[in-house]
């Protein structure tokens, strides 16, 4: 039996496919999302957006707009603090530069906010928006990211731009970040190689396109504090960022989140929050902002467009000896997540190959006059893996080695050090098993590379491997607090954000596992900056691995507290007690204090003494009978403080020993006290908080691994690709909830398929985004994804909770390279730019294709 099988044998709640705790509310359409829960009148907030890609605002005329009935306020750059900040939800000090203002006189992309308008309803706000007259001094813009670095035209010429971390940023060079990393002499090794594949791979700035657009509501509470309810993945970061944007103390702000209608990283950036926050702070009135789909497409936080230049060298026998990755990333007009996403393009692609003699990884991240990029599932790894995996597939073709065999020869394996992955060792790696299983599932041996069908179409297969991380090592912090409630159930407080992923449920599953109770006995409370313990937030594939461990630790601590309380109530030293879920039992050899005589001696103890005879604890019978208040009242009448004090007085172990020696019997009958009795006991004259918190941060970020294989049917007449079958095998460590892990995988695959085949991002010459609705930005429907088959080959991660790693992001990474491979196997053409539209494929097959044309 493998370690995972061993573990899953003894698990009761973890590793079970349980329904999500909020599932029935969601499927019955209960009012749980932001716009559903707001009561009363909220001002409607919208922003006027720049029609120019680069311009200075010369004048804004507001007088007629202000006269529109119902308008509460209109604000421009003159009304906001002149302190720059970043909207990126990252741990302070953020690697993303401080390059934004709430409203800036200098607008830097088509869609950049020019004015904030607040009014009593949408109609009046829309009218006012039309009446604002802005005079712009239009400037030339940087639309080609190849031209950005060291261009005399600066996206951020301002003096108060600043970078808090040493990421190689320089606004005087349009650089948001730059770095060089490596080991060995790449040039030398590449020269020694028999075969070198070189290519430049282009990934567009895809939109997360979560179904619920960005939205936030604000009001001022009883204490004069700004309450922000937002559809966000990062309540704590949002609090800090809003404080920066408004230039007010963080203590004045509380951020909470309701259910979130999808995030995928989009909501790891404070996209909507600052505008209604500003309005409510200024007016004292409740306000809300709900992005339209159009705004979500043109002014949000999409993937970083990257061009990844790769060189891979190998010997004739297939030994891959060197990888050189050079990434150019477009962060757009602002630097959100710019310095960090790019790192993954090399650090999470190169380490898949475990026999390198040398590698090099260099990158530049540049400012342009496009909308700012942000965090999108995969976070740079997606871009890097498309490049490296496609290059490796091309290498296999050139070497005439089966790409599966080539991977078997070179892939990283359990126990290896990964120099390009911060020198970490793979302590859990089932990539080899993933590869083997995926090949079986798709029928690789029979189907590779392709066959022509009777209808003239070509069927082919393609493959790719992938990795990701589990949280940001040494940075991401997850905490949890768990409390035993009076009725013997628990409440779990977390600061991570369930955006549909099910983390409320999987964290509760872990708590239930440790506390040996049913899942229904764990209530979850998340996320609220006032009451949740600190959590970086739900991103970087961190929640299961980082916060999960904190949940386990907090629950273990709480068990200790429960034993302590039980010991006091039973009059037995806690070391003689055992936690067993529904209650606490004395160990067979435990000696028991003769508390009876002590209690009797106090005079008022008759009642308690009697109850003790009947069972483990005074008054608790009453409590059991669902008459807790009465029971306590009785005790109070009797003089509770005294009585309780007595009971809680520690009877040291010695006394137990004495007692047992007196009787000459080491083991008395089992003593048992129910959890409800312990909990209720602690509410009356309690001195032990039945509540425990723990924080966790990991020095490592164990990568999950996976292999994806696609089978397509390609029509050579039209270049049309139909995806027939996709086999994905994932090693996420122990899946905490196999159902949710599977659906996460399926969802990520379909996003990856959309990105590979349909989802295009095109700018006009004036810098306007063409794909600004679901009409032009085509996300997959259920007719577009063929058959998906997902399996798990689990390793056991020793540092993770119950052996778990992560699942959220890795799953988007294989479709683009696997589909590029399948297309190459069908046509001989290696497409290097996403998406692979029929036109591109057709042109590539007919030799008339130039990169970047479509």
């Amino acid at each position, binding site marked *: 039996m493998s370690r995972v099988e061993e573990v899953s044998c003894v698990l009761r709640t973890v590793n079970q*496919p349980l*329904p*999500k705790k*909020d*599932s*029935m*509310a*969601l*499927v*019955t*359409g*209960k*009012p*749980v*999302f932001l*716009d*559903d829960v707001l009561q009363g009148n909220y001002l409607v907030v919208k922003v006027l957006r720049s029609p120019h890609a680069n311009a200075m605002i010369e004048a804004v005329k507001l007088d007629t707009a202000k006269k529109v009935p119902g308008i509460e306020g209109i604000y421009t750059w003159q009304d906001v603090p002149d302190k720059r900040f970043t909207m990126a939800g990252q741990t302070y000090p953020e690697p993303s530069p401080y390059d934004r203002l709430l409203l800036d006189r200098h607008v830097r992309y088509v869609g950049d906010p020019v004015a904030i308008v607040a009014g009593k309803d949408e109609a009046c706000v829309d009218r006012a928006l039309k009446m604002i007259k802005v005079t712009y001094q239009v400037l030339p813009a940087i639309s080609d990211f190849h031209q950005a670095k060291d261009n005399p035209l600066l996206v951020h010429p301002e003096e108060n731009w600043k970078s808090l971390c040493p990421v190689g940023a320089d606004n005087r060079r349009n650089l948001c970040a730059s770095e060089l990393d490596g080991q060995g002499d790449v040039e030398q090794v590449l020269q020694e190689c028999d075969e070198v594949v070189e290519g430049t791979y282009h990934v567009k700035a895809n939109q*997360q*396109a*979560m*179904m*619920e*657009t960005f939205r936030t509501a604000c009001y001022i509470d009883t204490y004069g504090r700004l309450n922000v309810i937002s559809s966000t993945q990062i309540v704590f970061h949002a609090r800090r960022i809003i404080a920066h944007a408004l230039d007010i103390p963080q203590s004045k702000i509380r951020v909470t989140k309701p*259910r*979130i*209608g*999808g995030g*995928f990283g989009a909501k790891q950036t404070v996209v909507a929050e600052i505008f209604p926050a500003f309005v409510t702070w200024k007016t004292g009135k409740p306000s809300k902002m709900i992005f*339209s*789909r*159009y705004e979500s497409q043109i002014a949000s936080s999409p993937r970083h467009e990257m061009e990844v230049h790769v060189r891979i060298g190998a010997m004739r026998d297939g030994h891959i000896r060197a990888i050189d990755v050079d990434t150019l990333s477009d962060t757009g007009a602002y630097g959100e997540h710019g310095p960090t996403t790019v790192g993954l393009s090399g650090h999470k692609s190169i380490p898949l190959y475990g026999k390198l003699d040398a590698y090099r990884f260099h990158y530049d991240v540049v400012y342009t006059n496009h909308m700012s990029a942000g965090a999108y599932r995969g976070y740079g790894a997606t871009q890097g893996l498309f490049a490296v995996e496609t290059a490796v597939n091309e290498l296999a073709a050139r070497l005439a080695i089966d790409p599966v065999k080539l991977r078997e020869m070179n892939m990283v394996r359990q126990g290896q050090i990964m120099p390009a992955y911060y020198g970490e060792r793979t302590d859990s790696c089932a990539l080899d098993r993933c590869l083997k299983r995926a090949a079986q599932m798709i029928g690789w041996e029979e189907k590779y590379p392709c066959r022509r069908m009777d209808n003239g179409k070509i069927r082919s297969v393609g493959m790719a491997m992938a990795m990701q991380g589990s949280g940001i090592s040494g940075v991401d912090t997850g905490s949890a607090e768990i409390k035993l409630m009076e009725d013997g159930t628990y409440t779990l407080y977390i600061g991570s954000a369930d*955006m*549909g*992923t*099910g983390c409320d449920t999987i964290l509760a599953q872990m708590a239930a596992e440790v506390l040996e109770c049913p899942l229904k006995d764990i209530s979850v409370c998340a996320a609220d900056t006032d009451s949740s313990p600190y959590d970086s937030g739900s991103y970087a594939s961190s929640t299961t691995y980082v916060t999960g461990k904190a949940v386990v630790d907090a629950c273990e601590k709480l068990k200790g507290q429960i034993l302590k309380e039980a010991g006091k109530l039973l009059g037995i030293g806690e070391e003689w007690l055992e936690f067993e879920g529904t209650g606490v039992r004395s160990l067979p050899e435990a000696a028991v204090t003769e508390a009876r005589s002590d209690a009797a001696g106090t005079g008022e103890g008759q009642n308690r003494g009697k109850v003790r005879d009947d069972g483990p604890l005074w008054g608790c019978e009453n409590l059991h009978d669902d008459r807790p208040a009465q029971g306590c009242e009785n005790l109070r009448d009797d003089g509770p403080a005294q009585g309780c004090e007595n009971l809680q007085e520690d009877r040291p172990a010695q006394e137990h020993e004495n007692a047992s020696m007196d009787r000459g019997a080491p083991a008395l009958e089992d003593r048992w006290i129910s959890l409800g009795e312990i909990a209720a006991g602690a509410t009356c004259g309690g001195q032990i908080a039945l509540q425990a918190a723990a924080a966790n941060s990991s020095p490592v970020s164990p990568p999950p691994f996976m292999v994806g294989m696609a089978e397509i049917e390609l029509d050579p007449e039209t270049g049309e690709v139909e995806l027939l079958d996709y086999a994905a095998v994932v090693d996420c460590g122990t899946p905490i*909830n196999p*159902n*949710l892990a*599977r*659906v996460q*995988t*399926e*969802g*990520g*695959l*379909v*996003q990856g398929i959309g990105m590979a085949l349909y989802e295009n991002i095109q700018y006009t010459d004036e810098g306007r985004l063409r794909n600004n*609705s*679901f*009409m032009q930005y085509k*996300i997959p*429907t*259920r*007719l577009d*994804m063929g058959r*998906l088959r997902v399996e798990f080959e689990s390793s056991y991660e020793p540092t993770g909770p119950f052996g778990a790693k992560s699942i959220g992001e890795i799953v988007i990474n294989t479709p683009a390279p696997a589909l590029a491979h399948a297309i190459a196997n069908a046509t001989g053409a290696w497409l290097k730019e996403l998406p692979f539209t029929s036109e591109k494929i057709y042109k590539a097959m007919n030799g008339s294709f130039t990169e970047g044309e479509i």
Partner: protein
Amino acid sequence: MKLSMILNGRKTEEEIAEGMTLYDFLRSQGCSSVKCGCETSNCGLCTVFLNEKPVLSCSVLAMRAQGCHVDTLEGLQEEAKEFGTFIANQGAEQCGFCNPGMIMNAIALFREIPDPTAEEIKEYLAGNLCRCSGYEGQLRGILNFLDWKKGGVRE
């Protein structure tokens, strides 16, 4: 303008502004299960029944429902629960934002084609976008539900 309709089985009369969409009207009536995901009739999140036929409420004028029966998930709670359990058992409800629209349309499908094939299901629901689930789990849930309806086991 006065609009009157039978909303979820109850006679409802309201003065409404000209040009109000059925979507806005339904939300104003507290039917918050009805969601909006686009402005271009592409996502299916706003699906409701107009005289028992599924329509996109974002692109129907409220006045078109004059004298009609309109149903939202609020009025179909029993069916939603019965079928939704099968989606939940797959973990396919995910963020849930697309669920009401998809479930409305699925109920319409079951009424129209009681025993659909997987292809028919996909085609019928093609207009209901979901960005989280990858659709496979929804399909499994639907197939299990149909199985159970035919006397199979509950999965």
